[in-house]
């Protein structure tokens, strides 16, 4: 079975025309798709492919043998020997030969979405914060392995030790840049949360929640446990997750860290709501409450 469909596009609508005339109604394109197509003069995307893309369910007429897309694929000729044979075969069957490679469409849409996402400060911060966290984890693991090797080999081969030292320097320089960038962006985007728990922890909370919205909607008890390894359970559940790295935590006695995580979560959930409304720094009262809480915990410990 072979079906020839041609696509005609006007702005954000497309219409398919088969051998006997228009097929169905015109279809509205997703605005993003339309934007990716804009500027290619109408000939850039194989209409036959788009026709297929626009959801021919298996029950539809094109699904049985799927000649439209197969013809498109055959005619693309991207791998020369197969492509030429495919092109000939497509012609012999009367399959439509599209004007340009469909992948151009995906590449362009992908680049467009990536650009859009990176223009969004929240998305960028999410990406950088995840990267920073991953780098911290992997470089710690790498350093431990190298040091073990060097210790085991009694100083290790000199050349290895030297190369490792140089690599480590480079890695640390890169990590420092990344940390600065994350901190700077977190202070700009979430100034109040950054003031309360520190910018790095603010960025990590944001990354784990997946955005400002999810973080704002989160209860403070979830916030307290966000990023914890253990599951909350009836027995000894976790007391903290990412907040273990909150600013101020280093001064708290180990057995009081859960208590501080609870207070920090309460303050953080207020701070992030302030940031969502208006990202300007006005967390003085929260900071006073934080200082008071830290002092109380210190008194408890010294008793």
């Amino acid at each position, binding site marked *: *079975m*072979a*079906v*020839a*469909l041609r696509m005609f596009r006007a702005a954000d609508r497309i219409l398919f025309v*088969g*051998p*006997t005339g228009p*097929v*169905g109604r015109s*279809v509205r*394109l*997703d605005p993003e*798709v339309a934007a990716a197509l804009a500027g290619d003069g109408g000939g850039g995307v194989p209409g036959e*492919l788009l*026709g*297929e*893309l*626009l*959801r*021919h*369910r*298996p*029950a*539809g*007429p*094109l*699904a049985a043998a*799927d000649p439209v*897309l*197969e013809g498109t*694929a*055959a005619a*693309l000729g*991207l*791998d020369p020997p*197969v*492509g030429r*044979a*495919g092109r000939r*075969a497509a012609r*012999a*069957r*009367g399959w439509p030969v599209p004007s340009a*490679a*469909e*992948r151009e469409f*995906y*590449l362009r*849409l*992908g*680049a467009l*979405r*990536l650009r859009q*996402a990176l223009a969004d400060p929240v*998305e960028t911060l999410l*990406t950088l914060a995840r*990267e920073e966290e991953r780098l911290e984890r992997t470089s710690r693991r790498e350093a431990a392995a190298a040091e073990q090797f060097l210790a085991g080999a009694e100083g290790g081969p000199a050349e290895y030790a030297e190369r490792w030292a140089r690599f480590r320097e480079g890695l640390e320089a890169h990590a420092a840049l990344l940390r600065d960038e994350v901190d700077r962006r977190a202070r700009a985007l979430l100034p109040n949360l950054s003031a309360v728990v520190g910018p790095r922890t603010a960025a990590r909370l944001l990354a784990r929640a997946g955005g400002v919205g999810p973080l704002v909607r989160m209860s403070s008890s979830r916030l307290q446990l966000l990023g914890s390894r*253990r*599951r909350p359970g009836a027995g000894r559940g976790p007391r903290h997750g990412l907040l273990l790295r909150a600013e101020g935590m280093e001064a708290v006695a180990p057995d009081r860290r859960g208590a501080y995580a609870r207070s920090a979560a309460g303050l953080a959930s207020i701070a992030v709501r302030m940031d969502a409304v208006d990202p300007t720094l006005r967390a003085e009262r929260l900071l006073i409450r934080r200082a008071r809480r830290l002092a109380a915990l210190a008194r408890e410990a010294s008793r």
Partner: protein
Amino acid sequence: MRSPTPFAPEPGSPRLKRRRESPHDTFWTVGAGGPDAVYGERVLLRPDGVSLRLFEPGRSKLAAGLARGLAGPLPRPGERWLYLGAATGTTASHVADLVGPLGRVYAVEKSLRPFARLLATARRYPNLCPILGDARWTERHLGLIPPVAGVYADLAQPDQVGIVLANCAEFLRPEGALLLALKTASMGRDATPEEHARAAHRQLAATFDLADPIPLDPFHRRHFLLAGRAARGPGASGSSGPPLVPRVPERATSRPAGPRAGPRW
């Protein structure tokens, strides 16, 4: 001089080659994206210009599945596959090799950083179509993913099975193939890896004829590969309402009907 060990095509997927070696066989895919390595893998260039890329079990869960005896279904030349969680395209590039220049791999990835690399890989892979987006948003991908012959998923998410089922219902053809790399560590610690694998198997068994979960250790610890075919076309059930495009009269073809109607695309 010893003659080199030959590469034998795998019966389930002709662009996948097995080389008998000790201590164990190696798997190679016929490169569809030019002679250069994608992520530093070994590449052999044959005199006829064909490149073979080493498909290493330690790097890819699909390769680990093969090493652990996965029989299929595998991506075949000319097929379209949907790949969920493509990351930088390590495994996706091999799947693209397997479907060959006339097939397509629609590779969905949601994280920006790996996606940027996936995009770079796709620039030289003619049959790899990268899609930046969350696999949970199946409806946003309706205009981008046509019906596919197979779905490969490697999402490492707690709700990975649900995401895969939703995508299969939307995009997988009747009797389409499913390969699911299951990371049990991201499914919670209240069950053993084997229990997680069995639960996923049960959850999928309503729609798919599945083989037993294949454990991927020692290559990937606490990971399993689930493989099978849709029992009753999950895609068909989603089609309520009239089709978008009404039936078009068939064009008469002048080709004589032979025993083989033409090449398989």
